[in-house]
């Protein structure tokens, strides 16, 4: 089927629309094309709320496809009312006045924010609701804090208003880890501020000292500088001291050791010098040094925290509440931590399953994609096992709980992940390696310089040794590497790749194998229409209209493939779990689904059994009407990234949990020769371990829960943008623009970064080779040291800033 040839684009979501399947909405007096009823409804809501300026402000198209949203909306309407239950509200609603009548505050995580205009839209829409005092959306962590008069509007109505704009809202409650990270972030900002303000002030006071001022004021100025430096050393520089002590205890020479040593020695000697009218004080160097180092670490921490923006709640897959059926047959809502083994729960269609268990009653299909990577729902009947965290798709089920909490399968995967993380090969960092040699050298040279001058009977021996330490320390390593890494991280972030761990840029150039997951990584992870083969006198468009009509109200993943198609009026639709769907049209009974369900009279052969995907049959009660092929289509540019990697001499492997033949088809289409299908998370991890033991550096690209252990174990883990929260928090790198080819940009960028780091370190070493003997000889006056140091730093920083000119993903690969 080729319905997506060049035509108009949907005004709301930017999808292509065709003449036959167009809706429209009046925006600002102009009739604008819409691709589907979902977009139309959202656009109408926006216009009716007086927020049409959204379309003027926005810089990005919506992230969630409205077809997908409408789908989740159907099931969400009902589940939203659960937000009103007390069991759930206890977790995320704070009553500010202490009772149910006063003001309340709740935090929601919003899904689907693509640009700043989304925040504007949501804040204004929620602000219009009765009783809402204010609504503030944080663009960096996508959290919406709403404060409202509790008795005037229900929580579910607030959430529904957000859904109607085309976003998903789920309640948020901070975990322990999240709280701690929050405190850590605040403390870091304070440390940075104290160091920054202190540096400015001490430098201001250092100028008259350098220029030379009247003897009687010198002592006073030095004293003032000392007072100002004290909080910088005691408060701001504390993280370096604790890290240095920890490293010394584990017998490790890291940069923290000479950094701490330089700070402490320079500070103590300056105090001594102040009190004893010594020749030199180094308060300004101490402050500046601390400030620059803190700044580098602060930026790194911010990038790391950004990853967990979805709340870092490992168990977000599990619903917060469950419907328990009591012994007397009465249903009541309980919080999910109150579920006990042996409880009987009712599972509504479209809801996540809260615990592991066994089906007691009912027949439905369950979407286990997040855990197994299998994108088609699996049919379940009485006696079958259910896994917590998966989704019930079609019809209600009654389940008996067999495992909760730590014993549940989801927790098992998490334990596997924890273990993999501990065993993760420690990346030998270039900076660390050089640092430990360099640190040792600096310490030896400084102490021998001191010994030499002391034996010569020079009274300035200590200060000469100290100036060696100060002159060599800052530029050489503390600036050379971090500035390059920061510039490269920022440049890659702009191009859609978020790096959260320090080792990534240094390990990337050494990667010699990239392992992909299939579903959701190389493929879109959702079914799309591939082919229509009419069998009777109806043409493809008519056939699709009939199927769209049948599937209109279905929540099954198959139905999503037909959302954007204009539907015919089909009535009395009825689903049969795992089989198909039937309905009435023009007095005919239509059936759509598996061939033996749609046309049970005689077995029909599939038109082309070699084609990838799934053939489904549409039939009336008189004759088969058409074959339709659905498949999980490949991501754009999946082929070019594979060939791009292979050109760079990197091996490409495909590991998929899907046991079907589609893995082979994908591998063939992309030219991947190394393929393993039907592998469990344990086997995936074992395969990666085997490669690592053979000396390879492995990068894993994945998205699902089943990829989590292997993501944790790989040298570098990359999660795609639609990945589950758990996968994202375990990844070192996250793709934010959904374009796999950004990976190639990252590889090239990392190589360039490595080169620039080498240049910077080379320059710094050269500078030190010249400066060190002069300083050791005691010939470096303070002003010369200051100019030399600044010039050297400036050169290093400018060189690092060249990394901002990385090629954009488009130009790197065609």
């Amino acid at each position: 089927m080729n319905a997506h040839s060049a035509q108009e684009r949907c005004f709301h979501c930017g999808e292509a629309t065709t003449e036959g399947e167009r809706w429209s909405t009046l925006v600002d007096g102009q009739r604008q094309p819409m691709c589907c009823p979902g977009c139309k409804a959202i656009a109408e809501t926006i216009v009716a709320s007086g927020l049409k300026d959204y379309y003027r402000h926005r810089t990005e198209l919506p992230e969630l496809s409205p077809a997908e949203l409408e789908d989740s909306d159907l099931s969400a309407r009902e589940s939203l009312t659960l937000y009103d239950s007390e069991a759930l509200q206890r977790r995320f609603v704070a009553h500010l006045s202490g009772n149910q009548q006063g003001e309340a505050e709740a935090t929601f995580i919003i899904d689907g924010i693509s640009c700043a205009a989304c925040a504007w839209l949501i804040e204004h829409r929620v602000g219009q609701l009765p009783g809402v005092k204010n609504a503030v959306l944080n663009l960096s962590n996508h959290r919406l804090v709403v404060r409202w008069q509790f008795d005037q509007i229900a929580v579910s109505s607030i959430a529904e208003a957000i859904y109607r704009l085309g976003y998903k809202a789920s309640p948020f409650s901070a975990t322990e880890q999240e709280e701690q990270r929050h405190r850590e972030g605040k403390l870091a900002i304070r440390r940075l501020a104290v160091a920054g303000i202190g540096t400015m002030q001490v430098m201001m006071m250092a100028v008259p000292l350098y220029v030379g001022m009247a003897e009687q004021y010198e002592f006073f100025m030095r004293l003032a500088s000392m007072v100002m430096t004290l909080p910088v050393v005691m408060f701001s520089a504390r993280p370096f001291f604790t890290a240095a002590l920890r490293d010394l205890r584990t017998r490790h020479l890291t940069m923290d050791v000479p950094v701490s040593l330089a700070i402490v020695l320079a500070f103590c000697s300056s105090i001594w010098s102040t009190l004893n009218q010594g020749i030199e004080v180094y308060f300004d160097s101490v402050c500046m040094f601390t400030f620059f180092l803190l700044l580098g670490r602060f930026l790194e921490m911010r990038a790391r925290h950004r990853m967990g923006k979805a709340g870092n709640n490992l168990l977000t897959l599990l619903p917060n509440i469950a419907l328990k059926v009591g012994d007397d047959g009465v249903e009541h809502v309980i919080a999910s931590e109150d579920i006990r083994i042996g409880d009987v729960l009712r599972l509504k269609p479209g809801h996540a399953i809260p615990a592991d268990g066994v089906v007691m009653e009912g027949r439905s299909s369950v979407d286990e994609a997040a855990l197994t990577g299998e994108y088609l729902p699996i049919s379940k009947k009485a006696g079958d096992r259910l896994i917590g965290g998966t989704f019930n798709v079609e019809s209600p089920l009654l389940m008996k709980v067999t495992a909760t909490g730590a014993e549940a399968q989801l927790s098992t995967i998490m334990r596997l992940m924890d273990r993999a993380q501990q065993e993760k090969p420690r990346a030998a960092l270039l900076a660390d390696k050089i640092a430990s040699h360099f640190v040792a050298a600096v310490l030896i040279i400084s102490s021998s310089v001191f010994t030499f001058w002391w034996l010569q009977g020079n009274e300035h021996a200590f200060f000469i040794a100290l100036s060696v330490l100060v002159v060599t320390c800052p530029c050489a390593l503390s600036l050379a590497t971090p500035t390059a890494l920061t510039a490269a991280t920022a440049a890659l972030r702009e191009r859609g790749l978020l790096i959260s761990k320090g080792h990534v840029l240094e390990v990337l150039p050494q990667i010699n194998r990239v392992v992909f997951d299939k579903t959701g990584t190389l493929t879109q992870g959702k079914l799309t229409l591939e082919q229509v083969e009419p069998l009777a006198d109806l043409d493809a468009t008519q056939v699709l209209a009939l199927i769209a009509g049948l599937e209109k109200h279905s929540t099954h993943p198959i139905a999503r493939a037909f959302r954007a198609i204009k539907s015919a009026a089909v009535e009395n639709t009825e689903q049969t779990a795992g089989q198909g769907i039937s309905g009435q049209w023009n007095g005919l009974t239509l059936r759509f689904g598996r061939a033996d369900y749609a046309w049970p009279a005689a077995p029909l052969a599939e038109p082309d059994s070699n084609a990838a995907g799934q053939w489904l049959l549409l039939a009336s009660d008189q004759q088969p009407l058409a074959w339709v092929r659905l498949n999980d289509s490949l991501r754009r540019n999946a082929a070019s990234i594979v060939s791009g990697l292979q050109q760079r001499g990197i091996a490409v492997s495909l590991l998929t949990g899907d046991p079907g033949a589609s893995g082979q088809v994908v591998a063939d289409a992309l030219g991947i020769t190394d393929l393993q299908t039907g592998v469990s998370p344990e086997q995936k991890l074992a395969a990666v371990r085997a490669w690592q033991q053979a000396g390879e550096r492995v990068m894993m690209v994945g998205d699902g829960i089943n990829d989590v252990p292997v993501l944790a174990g790989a040298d570098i883990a990359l999660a795609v943008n639609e990945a589950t929260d758990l996968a994202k928090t375990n990844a070192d790198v996250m793709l934010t623009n959904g374009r796999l080819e950004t990976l190639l940009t990252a590889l090239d960028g990392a190589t360039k970064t490595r080169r620039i780091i080498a240049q910077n370190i080379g320059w710094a070493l050269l500078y030190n080779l010249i400066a060190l003997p002069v300083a050791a000889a005691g010939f470096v006056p303070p002003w010369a040291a200051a100019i030399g140091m600044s010039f050297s730093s400036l050169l290093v920083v400018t060189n690092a800033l060249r990394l901002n000119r990385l090629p954009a993903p488009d130009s790197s690969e065609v």
Partner: protein
Amino acid sequence: MDIIYILVPLSLLLIGIAVLIFFWAVKSGQFEDMESPAHRILFDDDEPVSRPRNDTQDDKPSDKP
């Protein structure tokens, strides 16, 4: 030049106050979102907002703006 004995301690005092104000700003969460305020200022409604016809949460689909 003896004024310096007053001015320098005064500047230290002012810095102390500045740091305290900064700490208060951090505590009240002003540094938590470094992105939205920069964008928000651009969106302020340059034209009078077309208020919704009814302020309730009723948003009936309509073809009219």
